[in-house]
């Protein structure tokens, strides 16, 4: 058809405009092994409300003028854009000496590890030629090239800290903007492949651990209420994923008609409300259903500590219960950060990377259990609760000498 031919011609013209940027990379970028060996800043640090809010993430979708979006471009066009834009991204002050990888050189397992670390999206990991990711040294900022949009700039922070995550991506975005011609329209804002991202191109999301709202069966009305005010609730790995381990992602759906600070303030306000509800539910559980709570946490610890086969879903749900127990001081010397690291380490790709080979699902379940047993070895466990009436009664009763 004539229209197709015309389209092809223009696409060709599209791709011939950018002169090659000759980068002067003096220092080699960080290696994958180094990246993985060091836990990200957000995994170590505790942020505001980190007993309920695991992470805060903000991502910006950006595109270059005069170039078809990655989903509608040819492979050679994606490669050309990547070759020219990647050195610019690598040279950004925030990204210097970070990790940068072309997807053609990256194994499926390694890509999946990046997904599990929330550094790239599942959709991006599914792509290969013409795609790359650049991550800063602290693993707090990642820039996906040729995802659904030419650039997806993401910032991640521990706890409830969307402001700080936004500040980081905003800075990187302004740097990038001064070197690359963004597709921007005064009325429509940043032009994105999907009209749902139009305007600010910003998605701010918060990962919440809400076990008490689930246990007390209050989660559905909370999700409904959040949905009504225009926010989306999703599972652990974004769109269409299950809310395993009582983990929920809440993010804005609207990107046009509201400025970034307004969107962030609204989400933070909503999240603060959800945090309050979760804390009230936790307090109520501890007060009114202590035996049930101790039973659930105790069972979770026992299985995690002694099981030899652990499926991913089971492990996530049990670790969620253990995390709740740790937050409520029911698990002796168990530190929350140990559980949060385990939540990451037991993911399929992390296990396979650790084993340095591909594992069958059965092998993974066995290795998951082995790793969990090892990590929990030094934990006393919920053997004795100071609050428990039976325990305290037993130890406190003095010998009757008289």
């Amino acid at each position, binding site marked *: 058809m004539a229209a197709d031919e015309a389209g092809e011609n223009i696409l060709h013209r599209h791709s011939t405009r950018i002169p090659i940027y000759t980068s002067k990379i003096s220092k080699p970028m960080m290696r994958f092994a180094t990246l993985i060996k060091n836990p990200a800043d957000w995994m170590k640090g505790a942020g505001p409300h980190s007993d309920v809010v695991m992470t805060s993430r903000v991502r910006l979708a950006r595109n270059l003028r005069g170039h078809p979006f990655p989903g509608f471009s040819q492979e050679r066009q994606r490669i050309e854009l990547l070759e020219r834009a990647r050195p610019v991204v690598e040279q950004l002050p925030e990204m210097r000496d970070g990790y940068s990888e072309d997807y053609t050189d990256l194994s499926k397992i390694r890509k999946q590890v990046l997904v599990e670390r929330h550094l790239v999206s599942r959709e991006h990991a599914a792509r290969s030629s013409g795609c790359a990711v650049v991550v800063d040294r602290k693993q707090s900022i990642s820039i996906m090239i040729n995802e659904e949009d030419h650039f997806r700039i993401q910032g991640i922070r521990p706890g409830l800290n969307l402001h700080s995550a936004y500040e980081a991506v905003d800075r990187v975005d302004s740097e990038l903007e001064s070197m690359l011609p963004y597709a921007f329209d005064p009325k429509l804002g940043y032009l994105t492949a*999907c009209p749902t991202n139009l305007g600010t191109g910003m998605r701010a999301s918060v990962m919440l651990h809400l076990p008490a709202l689930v246990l007390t069966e209050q989660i559905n009305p909370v999700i409904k209420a959040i949905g009504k005010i225009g926010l989306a609730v999703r599972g652990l790995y974004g769109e269409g994923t299950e809310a395993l381990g009582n983990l929920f992602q809440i993010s804005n759906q609207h990107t046009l008609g509201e400025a970034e600070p307004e969107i962030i303030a609204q989400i933070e306000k909503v999240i603060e409300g959800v945090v309050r509800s979760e804390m009230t539910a936790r307090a109520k559980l501890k007060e009114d259903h202590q035996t049930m709570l101790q039973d659930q946490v105790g069972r979770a610890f026992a299985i995690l500590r002694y099981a030899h086969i652990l499926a991913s879903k089971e492990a996530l749900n049990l670790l969620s219960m253990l995390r709740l127990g740790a937050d409520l001081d029911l698990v002796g010397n168990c530190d929350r950060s140990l559980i949060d690291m385990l939540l990451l380490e037991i993911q399929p790709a992390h296990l396979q990377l650790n084993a340095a080979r591909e594992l069958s699902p059965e092998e993974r379940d066995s290795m998951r259990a082995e790793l969990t047993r090892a990590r929990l070895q030094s934990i006393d466990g919920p053997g004795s609760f100071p609050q428990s009436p039976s325990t305290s009664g037993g130890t406190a009763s003095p010998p009757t000498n008289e």
Partner: protein
Amino acid sequence: MKAGTTNSMKCDVCENEATVFLTQIINGQMTTVNLCETCSKAKGVTEETGFGLAEAFLSPSQRSESDVMEVVCPACGFTASQLKKIGRMGCPECYAAFRDGLDALLRNMHKGTKHVGKRPTHVSAVSPQILPRQRMNPAPTAPVPPPAPPAAPAAPPPPDLAKLRAELDLAVKEERYEDAARLKSEIESLQPKTSK
């Protein structure tokens, strides 16, 4: 397109009572055809084949015309049907090509239809409205008036800094990234260190 029965109309062909009538949109114009039982059969129009009515009444030339009428993005060749099917645009310029109906779509999707929020300081000074046609057929080296320097900071920058910034904007606009990177580091080296 709709097929149905009615007692109140006369057949457009023979003036008998119309029992079949059809409404369709051809080239953006709504047309209605009323037919009696006999004429509708003679034209091959029956209830069972009701959804083929448009085909039956459109001449081959009209049909091809309506196909060609489909909106196509002049920049990337993305079609309105592709947009409908995938729900995504082909390139940034598609937003201009598919502007009709976009507002209604955006109203359902977002809080508003106008962007409020961050604007690229470098691009906004030089960026035309969407669909910058000159980019599709770039004139070899059309001189571009230097864009206005970015919004003035608290203290006015020294003249050489302003000049460098204008040069940087121009380099970005002309996609001379190597120059842009060089100018940027020059600007950075001249600027006093800020807290952030």
